[in-house]
């Protein structure tokens, strides 16, 4: 059995209006039916653009926001339905590392007080002396000096603050740590340090992570399984290598193609999918497939029927009606909403270096793109992963 199982989780925020009496005039569908499983000892990466609901999902797992529907089962206990009193003691097993390292630390508490507060609330350590001993151990583990205890958050650097945030989660010995954009507020050089620290801690302490991020390189580096979110639902879920080698959903393909390649020759030749328009409002999501308004391959069926997340082989799940057709090239991108710049292996460099043109490409070229896309994105992912490992 998986450590964490989400089944049809929905988080809807009511939109209220009215001066004296609140009237619900609609809902923001922040998370709209997500099911996923996180295995013990593994890392589940959740990616998606801003506003797709990934942070809300993370908070829903901790029940920092109330779950409208569905279940969040950690080790047999449904967090979503736990009464307030039991929830408080249960929270020890679920911890969170926040995006903003400074904002998530109380500026008027010193590090000892920040770290021991949770321990005291859960009765870990008989007295303050015992707790201090335990905190010292954890501080050493996350790479902070022992004299940090009496200092205040503003006296630390960004990377150190994030280490404090990680230590705060660790002192409670949780089963699952949710990392909400753990490195996006940090410098690139510090990002690698913190990512590596998270990996080392996972190895030495057997931790399970749910990592929420928008940085594809970070997520690939750290995750075993990756879920791609779009407008409150999962569009694709696959083991990390499989996802990067062969993204199946049009949205994932667009995301992957947006990662620049350091090699200029590859950069010019590779396939690029440019999405037009913005993320639709989660208060008024489009009918059918959530992505059809921006999908270059959209068909009439897409606006009518919402695709389910189905297995396309090898644990690679995708929510798209036309996965196979897109992959083998029988379905071609159309419409002026999006532009696919096909990979042009033979084209002279001067011409392909131009900015993408808004016109839709010819169907012949697009059919070709189906074959070459896999290799192109493989190059992308190779280079990206190298990028990360150099930072170690």
């Amino acid at each position, binding site marked *: 059995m998986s450590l964490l199982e989400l089944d049809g989780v929905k988080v809807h925020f009511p939109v209220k209006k009215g001066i004296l009496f609140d009237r619900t005039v609609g809902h923001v569908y922040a998370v709209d039916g997500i099911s996923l499983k996180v295995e013990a000892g593994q890392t589940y990466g959740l990616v998606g653009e801003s506003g797709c609901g990934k942070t809300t999902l993370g*908070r829903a797992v*901790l029940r*920092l926001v109330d779950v409208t529907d569905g279940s969040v089962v950690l080790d047999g206990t449904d967090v979503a339905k736990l009464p307030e009193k039991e929830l*408080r*003691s*249960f*929270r*020890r097993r*679920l*911890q*969170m590392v*926040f*995006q*903003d390292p400074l*904002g*998530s*630390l*109380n*500026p*008027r*508490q*010193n*590090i000892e007080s920040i770290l021991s*507060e*949770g321990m005291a*609330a*859960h009765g870990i350590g008989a007295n303050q002396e015992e707790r201090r001993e335990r905190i010292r151990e954890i501080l*050493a*583990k996350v*790479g*902070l*000096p*022992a*004299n*940090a205890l*009496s*200092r*205040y958050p*503003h*006296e630390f650097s960004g990377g150190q603050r994030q280490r404090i*945030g990680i230590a*705060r989660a660790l002192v*409670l010995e949780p089963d699952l740590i949710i990392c909400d954009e753990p490195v996006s507020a940090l410098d690139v050089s510090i990002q690698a*340090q913190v990512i590596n*620290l998270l990996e*080392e801690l996972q190895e030495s302490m057997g931790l399970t992570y749910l990592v929420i991020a928008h940085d594809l390189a970070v997520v690939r580096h750290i995750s075993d399984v990756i879920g791609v979110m779009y407008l409150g639902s999962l569009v694709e879920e696959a083991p990390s290598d499989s996802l990067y080698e062969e993204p199946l959903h049009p949205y994932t393909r667009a995301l992957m193609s947006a990662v620049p390649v350091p090699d200029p020759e590859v950069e010019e030749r590779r396939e690029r999918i440019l999405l037009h328009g913005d993320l639709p409002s989660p208060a008024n999501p489009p009918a059918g497939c959530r992505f059809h308004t921006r999908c270059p391959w959209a068909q009439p069926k897409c606006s009518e029927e919402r695709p389910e997340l189905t297995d396309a082989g090898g644990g690679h799940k995708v929510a798209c009606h036309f996965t196979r057709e897109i992959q083998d090239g029988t379905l071609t991108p159309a419409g002026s909403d999006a532009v696919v710049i096909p990979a042009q292996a033979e084209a002279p460099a001067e011409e392909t270096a131009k900015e993408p043109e808004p016109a839709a490409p010819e169907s012949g070229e697009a059919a070709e793109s189906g074959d070459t896309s896999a290799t192109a994105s493989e190059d992308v992912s190779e280079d990206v992963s190298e990028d990360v490992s150099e930072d*170690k």
Partner: protein
Amino acid sequence: MSLTTTASKIDRLAQLTARTETASGASLWREAMRRMRASKMAIIGAVIIAGFVLLAVIGPWIAPYSPTDQTWRGEVFSNRGEFVGARAENWFGLDHLGRDLFSRMLVGARQTLLVGVVSMLIGLLIGAFVGIVSGAAVTLGGKTGRRIDDAIMRVTDILLALPSLLLAVSVAAVMGQSLTTVMIAVGVVQIPVFARLLRGSMLAQGGSDYVLAARSLGIRKRRIVLTQILPNSLSPVIVQATLSLATAIIEAAALSYLGLGNPDPAVPEWGVMLSAAQRFFDNEPMMSMYPAVGIVITALGFTLLGEAMREALDPKLRG
């Protein structure tokens, strides 16, 4: 790089920094104090206030004459416009009843300070209490809490909508004429200001990430409100308290000036003195100048200190 070498490097760095810094970290309050000491505005404000408080404490003992005895009654004829200005005997001259103005200023400082401090405290304590109740209700109480907060805030809105002096005059008029009335009246005016300020500050802090973090740690909500949200919400209130001391003194003076202050004219108070002197402004402008300048300088001192505190406590300006 392995973890152990990283850790040893960090420890080495910590040893080096420990030599230049004290072992314990600097809390925000301590750092704010350090910034205050470096601020000219704060120093000028503090010096003015210290002088004023000193006068208020020792004034009655160093006053050269009695503030109430009409010793030079025979030299002043207000109906004929004959006044005595500053002279060697009486440094600030005499008032319209032949009393020594310098002595009256010295003794009056105490009353003025008392009115300012007491009315500020009335506003601060009641206002902060209302603010905490309201802020805590929103943070803790779900729907019922929001209702309680709504009810409290509508009442403070009504109080805020009334012009402050008008409100003070109404309170003073209802309660009759006395110094206590002035203090209460001026204090009541400040209650909604403090309540709103603290509630707003608590609400803003309630949405911050560290509160979320505390919740996810499984800490009780009541404890979060008291140990996390409240201490972080206090700085604007402290600043407002200093600033409102200035307005309280001015408003108390205004009430005295309108004749709603201390009914016993023998007890000197700067506002009452200003009120009395105003009748003779055409003949003897200096008589009203002393209490007026006194009030202005005192208010200025509190305002300067308050502004300096605001800057020192603002986390965005932390360098």
